[in-house]
């Protein structure tokens, strides 16, 4: 059945409401004025220029990118074997393990952040790379496990059985046969965990310090202090970056399928 024009109108309205703030930011990011006002007094690229020469934000960007890459790698290293075990092996407590690995997603990040602060403070790990990596991995690993479980489950078990009969040990069969066939899932998991870490704000607020800070936290602070369109230029840059990443995943395996919700 074709959707009625009423439904289409309603959907269009919904989409408009969802996208309007983004469109607003897009327009403002090209402003020639000194303040976050709409409509802008004129158009220019000055705030993009200002953004890329802002030392504080650029340093935070480098930190965030590096941190996200490290978190993504760690999440895959931990998440892929766990996902393989959940998807392939039959052992007591499998359901419990799967639930435990998802649990961090159910807790408010505020609670996670506070908990991490209480644990990491005495250890001297606040505002350090290991501390941030640990905090971000806590929320990134569940995504990696979820996506990789779906990816492993989609590889026929017979392939592995065939590899065994040809002389491959279970480990070699998993690495040479199952893993390559789950590669699109691994790439999707890598990209999504990267974005999870890159966008993470609440946990970071608890764990950063003057020595080490991430981009979302710096943005937050910048927006608190100043009201110029630089923040709009930054927001636009990040949106474009995230869209590119999602496009990569979509291209590789379909975003919705990667999330295991088809």
């Amino acid at each position, binding site marked *: 059945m074709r959707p009625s024009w009423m439904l289409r109108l309603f959907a269009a309205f919904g989409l408009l409401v969802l996208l309007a703030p983004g469109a607003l930011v897009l327009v403002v990011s090209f402003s020639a004025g000194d303040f976050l006002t709409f409509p802008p007094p004129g158009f220019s690229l000055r705030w993009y220029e200002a953004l890329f020469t802002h030392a504080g934000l650029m340093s935070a960007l480098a930190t965030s990118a590096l941190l996200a890459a490290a978190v993504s790698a760690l999440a895959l290293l931990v998440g892929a074997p766990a996902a393989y075990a959940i998807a392939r092996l039959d052992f007591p407590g499998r359901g419990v393990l799967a639930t435990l690995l998802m649990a961090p997603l159910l807790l408010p990040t505020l609670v996670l952040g506070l908990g991490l602060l209480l644990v990491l403070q005495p250890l001297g790990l606040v505002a350090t790379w290991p501390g941030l990596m640990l905090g971000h991995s806590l929320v990134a690993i569940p995504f990696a496990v979820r996506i990789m479980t779906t990816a492993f489950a989609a590889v026929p078990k017979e*392939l592995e*059985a*065939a590899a*065994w009969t*040809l*002389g*491959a040990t*279970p480990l070699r069969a998993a690495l040479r*046969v199952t893993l390559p066939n789950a590669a699109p899932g691994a790439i999707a998991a890598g990209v999504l965990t990267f974005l999870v870490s890159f966008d993470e704000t609440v946990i970071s607020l608890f764990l950063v310090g003057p020595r080490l800070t991430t981009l979302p936290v710096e943005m937050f602070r910048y927006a608190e202090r100043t009201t110029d369109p630089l923040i709009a230029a930054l927001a636009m840059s990040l949106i474009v970056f995230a869209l590119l990443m999602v496009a990569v995943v979509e291209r590789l395996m379909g975003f919705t399928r990667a999330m295991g919700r088809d």
Partner: protein
Amino acid sequence: MSGAAPHLRLEGLTRHYGGAPAPAVDAVSLDLPRGALLALLGPSGCGKTTTLRMIAGLERPDGGRILVGGQDVTALPPHRRQMGVVFQSYALFPHMTAAGNAAFGLEMRGLGRAERARRAQAALEMVGLGALAGRRPRQLSGGQQQRVALARALAIEPELLLLDEPLSALDAKLREGVRDEIRALQQRLGTTTVFVTHDQTEALAMADLVAVMDAGRVEQLAPPEEIFERPATRFVATFVGRAARLAGRLEPGGVFRCGGGLALRSASGLAPGPAEAFLRPHRVRLLAPAEAPPPGFDNLLDATLARRTYTGEVIALETETAAGPVMAELHAGTDEAWRGLAPGAPLRLAFRAADLAVFPAP
């Protein structure tokens, strides 16, 4: 150990799935000589695939032993068994070329790159796919994929070749050709082979030995001719080939008494009691009105033609007798008598005592 020792021996092999009331494989024992092809034949769920998977090591038996060349391999994991397996789904590695698939087992054995490539190519050429070595599985047709799977299994020069319904995914036209190719290749290489199928024609045409299975048990293990002509159990008589089934009683001396008080001779040595007799259509001879039965044809039946089905080569006749419905057949090419036959025509049927297979009533 003598040269006549079986290459594969199953001793009381049993597999019981949790929750199932009866074992999937129930104390299966059999011997297979070196170089022979064994067909495990039976309906779906009879335990034939589970038996094959246990031989491959992909499933663990709950009881019994598997011996290969006298060695007990029951506890060995699949990667240490040297079994070439062709799966029903072929299970080709989609991320590798045909050559990569064929070389996989050699790579696992630590062979050098050049040696691997040479032997993989040789295996692909053996199945007639030498020219398509660079293709990936999805670029190959079903028949070609099947050959790659066979080449991959044979490349490791396996102790045993295990085939799980390898023809079932092919269309009917291809099937016969591939069947004969597999058989020819198997005989040329002398590879001891176990073949799972639900198709009796396949089993009879390819195998040296057929094990007919039902409900986890081997009903009969014999060469194809014997399976077909001398079924050992009621199940084999009904599952393999077509046969008319007559209900009655077995009396002393092998006399089978059936409907209408008719007494038929059989070669049965069973104890007297309620029984069922099976008679294959190709064993029934049609007699001309005044014709005397040939020597040895001890049983004579008066019949009425109920239906005649022309299938090209064979004319299938369904007749009514006092004993019940009996099937017969004529060859369109050599038997001219069928041309005049119409339903309702009286017929005289003759058959040997030995061709009436009698089993106790279920």
